[in-house]
Every structure is written in structure tokens, then in C-alpha cells.
């Protein structure tokens, strides 16, 4: 089966690009930060520098693991779902679920090894830049020399491999649970019910996020930057909770937008509404990264922006130099998250849209002009972007409002709206550009050929 996995990889490189990219970037980031541990372990490192280096490495490494895990599950699920027919075929010729699962995990493991190996060189460079940045901003002593060794390699490779394999196991379990017949029809007839486990997890994440928000106000009022300990996490957990509810949210937003879309969008609006309704699961997959990106980026960046504008607080236990390290961390986490979210949004939408080539062909044969197809896809994108931005914004509130309250006594932050506009436009442009770009490409094939697959 491992042989089959490698052969299967070679023949469908396209499907693995996104998985590879997230593993590669994840490995690079994690390894670069893990190199700070090697650096901290070097000779002649003072205590303050050592603590800064270690905290950075652990915080970013931890979030890196979560993000890469999420990215791998998401990209692998997609590539497996698109091969539902192939999986069904394998099963029908006698492959056991275990064998199919082993193939999926084998593929992920193979991609992870290559991705992590290729990440070593860029990670060495990135780690060095990171140290220089910390030294230039006086967060780490000048004399410390760069180290890249066992910690970087073992943590970098370990985290990537672990994330890839556990992501693949989750994917494989889902894929093999489907019966052969279901696998064939799952593509067209989707049921949009959420599993109990998922509902419970979603509620738990929302509760944790809310709890962090309450703690921020209750415990850290007037304690300055200390409040970031809970405020920063609040939007992350809350956004994850909302993202897990994506199928429900898609339906809710569709219900609200259905009327206007039909009225203003004509036949394309009508088709867009039907498609979104019948493909809740696909849409939810694309909605999740948009919510996470909007929620966490808005939350974190506004938290930092409020902090930068606020007067120093008497009750803070954190010295100024450490505050700067926290700022760097915030930007790194948001930067990392944005890149991953962008990969996921693009990958999910491009894959899902390209996969509809046949359906677009059928629609064209039924009398759709290319502009009608594109405007339908565009309106589906509008539903997605609207839902993602709306719920992402809600996710960010649990960070922004409590932090502002704790830090300035005002619920609404007195900072620029520019950051928000920037984040929202990025989310909207990413969504629409991915959908429309892929659809344009998909309808370049003559309709008769597009349906002949």
C-alpha cells in the first residue's frame, strides 16, 4: 500500500500542492522558531534572553502545531473527497478500509517527509533573521550567537510529521467510514447535518472563548498588557467555535441572502442559492478559514493597536522590553495565520470550483452563457465572503471589546478602522478571486468535453 501511495502521489501532484505547501511553510516556521531553543541553549546566554527565546519558541511552535494540523486536515480532506470515486473503486475491487486508510496516511507521511526536508535550509535562514530582529530590538543580548541543531530539527520534523499523520488519520477515518455507494453519491447529494461530536466541540470552544473574554475584564482591569494573556486567546477559541458551526452559519446566511440574491441576481442568483443550499458541506469547508482569518487577525491586531495607543498601566507586571517581545509575537502569529488561512481559502475554493467543471458544462449545455456561469459563481462567493466576514468579526469582538474595556475603560477602541477594512477586503478579495479565477479556467474547456469525463 505504501508503494501505491507513492505511485498515487506521483500521478496527482496537483491535488497535493496545498497539503505540501502548508506542511512546508509550517515546517519552516516551526523549525525557525525551534532554532531559538538551540540558540538559547548556547554558551553565554543571559537569563532574560534565554526566557525570551524560549517563550517565543514554545508559543509559536505550539500554535504552529495547531495551525499545521488544521491546514493538513483541511487540505487532505479535500483531496480525498475529490477522489471519492477512486476510493470507492479501490474498495469495490477488494481493498479493506484499513488498506485505504493506510494509503491516505502513507501519502501524507511521504509528503510530510519531503516538505520538512526541503524546509530545513529556508528555516536556517529564517531563524537567523529572527534572532537578528530580536537583537536589533534589544529583546535579546547582542553577543549571543545563532544555533541551529537538534531542537530545531527534531521539533521541526516532529511537529510536521505528527501534524501530517494525525491529520491524515482523521481524514482517513472519515473517508473509510463511507460505504462504497455513499462515496459515489456523496459528491452530489450531501447531507448537511452536523455530528453530535462537532456540535459539542463547537460549543466548548465558544465557551472557552467567552470565558477568556470575561476573565479579561474581571481579572485584568487596569493591569495593562497583562490582559493579553486571556484577551489574545479569546478570539482564537471563539473563532474556532464559530468555524466549527460553519454548516449552520452557511445555511443561516443563505436564508437571509436568498431573497435579495434571487431578486437582484436573476437566474444566476437563483442557481447560486440552490447550489449553496445543496452544497453546505463544501461551502462550510471554505467558510472555516475565512472566519478564522478574519476573527483572529482582527482580534489580535486591534488588541495590539489598543495597547500601543493606551497609556502605561500602573498594575502591569510586565516590563517594557517584554511588552515589545509580545508585540513581535502577536505579529508573527497573525502573519503565520494569515498565510495559512490564505492557502486554505484559495485551495478549498479553487479545488471545489475546478471540481465543478462537469457541472458547469452541463449548465452550459442546458443554455447557460459563460457570463451566467461566472455571475452564479460570483454570487456564491459573495455569500461566502459575507458569512466569513460577518462571523469572523463576531469572533474578534470577544478579544477587542474586553481588551479595550480593561485597558481604557471604553468598550469601543479608539483606534483606526483601517486595519479592519484591510482585513475584510483581503478576505473578500481572496474569496472572490479564487472562485472566479478557477471558474473562468473551468469553463475555458468546451462544454461537450467538460461533461465527457
Amino acid at each position, binding site marked *: 500500500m505504501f508503494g501505491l501511495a507513492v505511485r498515487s502521489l506521483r500521478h496527482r501532484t496537483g491535488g497535493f500542492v496545498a497539503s505540501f505547501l502548508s506542511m512546508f511553510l509550517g515546517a519552516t516556521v516551526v523549525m525557525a522558531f525551534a532554532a531559538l531553543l538551540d540558540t538559547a541553549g548556547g554558551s553565554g546566554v543571559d537569563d532574560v534572553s534565554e526566557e525570551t527565546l524560549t517563550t517565543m519558541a514554545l508559543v509559536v511552535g505550539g500554535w504552529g502545531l495547531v495551525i499545521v494540523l488544521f491546514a493538513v486536515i483541511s487540505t487532505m480532506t479535500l483531496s480525498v473527497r475529490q477522489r471519492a470515486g477512486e476510493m470507492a473503486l479501490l474498495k469495490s475491487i477488494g481493498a479493506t478500509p484499513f488498506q485505504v486508510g493506510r494509503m491516505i496516511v502513507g501519502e501524507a507521511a511521504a509528503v510530510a517527509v519531503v516538505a520538512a526536508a526541503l524546509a530545513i535550509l529556508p528555516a536556517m535562514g529564517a531563524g537567523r533573521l529572527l534572532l537578528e530582529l530580536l537583537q536589533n530590538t534589544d529583546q535579546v543580548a547582542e553577543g549571543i550567537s545563532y544555533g541551529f541543531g537538534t531542537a530545531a530539527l527534531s521539533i521541526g520534523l516532529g511537529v510536521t510529521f505528527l501534524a501530517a499523520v494525525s491529520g491524515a488519520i482523521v481524514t482517513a477515518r472519515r473517508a473509510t467510514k463511507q460505504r462504497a455507494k455513499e462515496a459515489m*453519491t456523496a459528491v*452530489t*447529494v450531501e447531507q448537511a447535518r452536523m455530528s453530535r461530536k462537532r456540535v459539542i466541540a463547537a460549543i466548548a470552544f465558544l465557551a472557552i472563548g467567552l470565558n477568556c473574554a470575561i476573565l479579561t475584564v474581571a481579572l485584568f482591569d487596569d493591569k495593562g498588557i497583562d490582559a493579553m494573556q486571556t484577551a489574545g486567546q479569546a478570539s482564537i477559541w471563539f473563532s474556532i467555535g464559530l468555524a466549527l458551526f460553519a454548516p449552520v452559519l452557511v445555511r443561516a446566511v443563505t436564508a437571509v441572502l436568498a431573497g435579495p440574491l434571487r431578486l437582484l441576481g*436573476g*437566474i444566476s442568483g*437563483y*442557481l447560486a442559492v*440552490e*447550489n449553496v*443550499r*445543496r*452544497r453546505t458541506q463544501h461551502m462550510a469547508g471554505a467558510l472555516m478559514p475565512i472566519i478564522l482569518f478574519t476573527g483572529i487577525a482582527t482580534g489580535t491586531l486591534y488588541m495590539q493597536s489598543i495597547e500601543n495607543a493606551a497609556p502605561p498601566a500602573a498594575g502591569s507586571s510586565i516590563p517594557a522590553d517584554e511588552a515589545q517581545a509580545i508585540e513581535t509575537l502577536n505579529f508573527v502569529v497573525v502573519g503565520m495565520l494569515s498565510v495559512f488561512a490564505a492557502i486554505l481559502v484559495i485551495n478549498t475554493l479553487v479545488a471545489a470550483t475546478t471540481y465543478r467543471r462537469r*457541472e458547469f*458544462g*452541463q*449548465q*452550459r*449545455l*442546458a*443554455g*447557460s*452563457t*459563460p*457570463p*451566467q456561469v461566472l455571475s452564479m459563481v460570483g454570487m456564491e462567493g459573495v455569500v461566502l465572503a459575507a458569512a466569513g466576514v460577518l462571523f469572523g468579526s463576531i469572533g474578534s469582538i470577544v478579544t477587542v471589546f474586553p481588551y479595550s474595556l480593561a485597558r481604557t475603560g471604553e468598550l469601543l477602541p479608539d483606534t483606526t478602522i483601517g486595519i479592519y477594512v484591510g482585513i475584510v477586503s483581503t478576505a473578500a478579495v481572496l474569496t472572490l478571486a479564487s472562485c472566479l479565477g478557477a471558474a473562468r479556467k473551468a469553463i475555458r474547456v*468546451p*462544454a*461537450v468535453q467538460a*461533461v465527457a469525463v
Partner: protein
Amino acid sequence: MPEHDITSAAEALRLVQVSKTYGTGDNPVRALDDVSLSLAAGTFTAIMGPSGSGKSTFLQCAAGLDQPTAGRVFIDGAELTGGSETALTKFRRQRIGFIFQQFNLLPTLTVLQNVTLPLRLAGKRADRKRAIAILERVGLGDRIGHRPAELSGGQQQRVAIARALVTNPSAIFADEPTGALDSRSARTVLSLLAEAVREFGQTVVMVTHDPVAASYADSVIFLADGRIAGSLDRPTAETVAERMTHLGDAVTLRPAVGE
């Protein structure tokens, strides 16, 4: 049969010296070679020929799904001119209905929504009553709320027939409409097509390689190597099968004569 009806006002389809060549490189394939014919409105014509003889190419060129390399195509007196896909689509959805081997219904729409789709796409009112009446006609009056995946192949093909009929097109083109069906469903589908011609005066052009399917038509036109190789009126399965065997001989002889 070909070319004796050109002046008739009730002419549904006319091809004038249509050729189609695939590929431009070293070995271009001449899939259609100087084909001319005229079909009267209200007729049921089968196009037959061995695999690779150009049947699908003929259908695509005649129906405006593909552009011929040379020659002219008229549907209901209007010439199919080269243009953007949008222009061609608008031409097609006014005048042409399609039925494909693989049904090609939209998976996310219900049976009724699939049938009214061509009307909606053309910006017309979706005439539910008419659509339901046609669905009842094809025996699916009780399935209008189902999705294609919930129907058998034969039922899906009947939805496709209803969809083709709903716009009241000048011509319906069917490419191997029974190719994916069991013989029972195939008979139902063929009878429905024949009925559309007899009772509603529809014009149907059907590509097939099955002599039994062809026997439902009023006449058969044979294609070999991209050329018209004869025709047959009031066909029966036996006479068609007979002609097909001879066509096989003709095809094996052709390369010696070739271009």
C-alpha cells in the same frame, strides 16, 4: 433522402458542405467530410455509422455546440454563424434541445427545476404548469421534487426529454440517448421521442449505433468515414443491421481510395 427538400418552408435543419477537421498538425483528422443534407420539420431521423465515423461530430456541428471548419448550418432557416460562446448559446437555447447519453441534469436542482432551467436561463417566465404537464407526459408527474441522484437512469433520461421539450425547440438532438440504459428503459425513451414527433410535430435527430433504436425513426442516414454513405426510409431493425454490415465493408475499403 438528403438534398431533395431544400426549398421546403418546413425545413428544420440544413447542412451545406459541412466539414470538420480536428487538429492542425501533422496528422489532421477529417471527422466530417463535405456533408450536405436537409431534414424536414416534424421528422425523426437516426444517424448511424460505425464508431469513429463522425456521428458525434456531426451532431455537435449541426447543433451549434462546435464550429465546423467549413460549410454552413441552418436551423429553422436561421444560419448558425460563428461567434462567441455567449452568442452561440443564445442561438441554441432558442432553437435547440439536447439529450445526451449521460443525461447531464444539474445535480443540485430538482426534477422540476431542471426542466424549467432552459426557460429561466433564457430570461423567460418559468412556466411551471407546462413543465409539470410535460413531466406527467413522460411519466414523472410524481417525481417533480426529486433530485437526479434519486432517480434511475431511465427516469433521468425522461427528465432530459422533458427539459428538451419545454422550450418547444425547432430541433431536438440526441446523442446515443439509450446508450446508458437497459433495454426496457431504452424502449420507453425511444417511444417518447417518437411520440414527440408524431403528436407534437417535434423534429428529432438521434445519433445511435443500435439498429433497434434506429428502427423507431422515420428514416436513417448512414455515416462512414465522415461522409454520408446512404439513407433508408421506414427502417426496421433488420434492414438497418443489414446495411450496417455492408457499411463495415465500405469502411475497410475506404483507406485505399482515401485522400
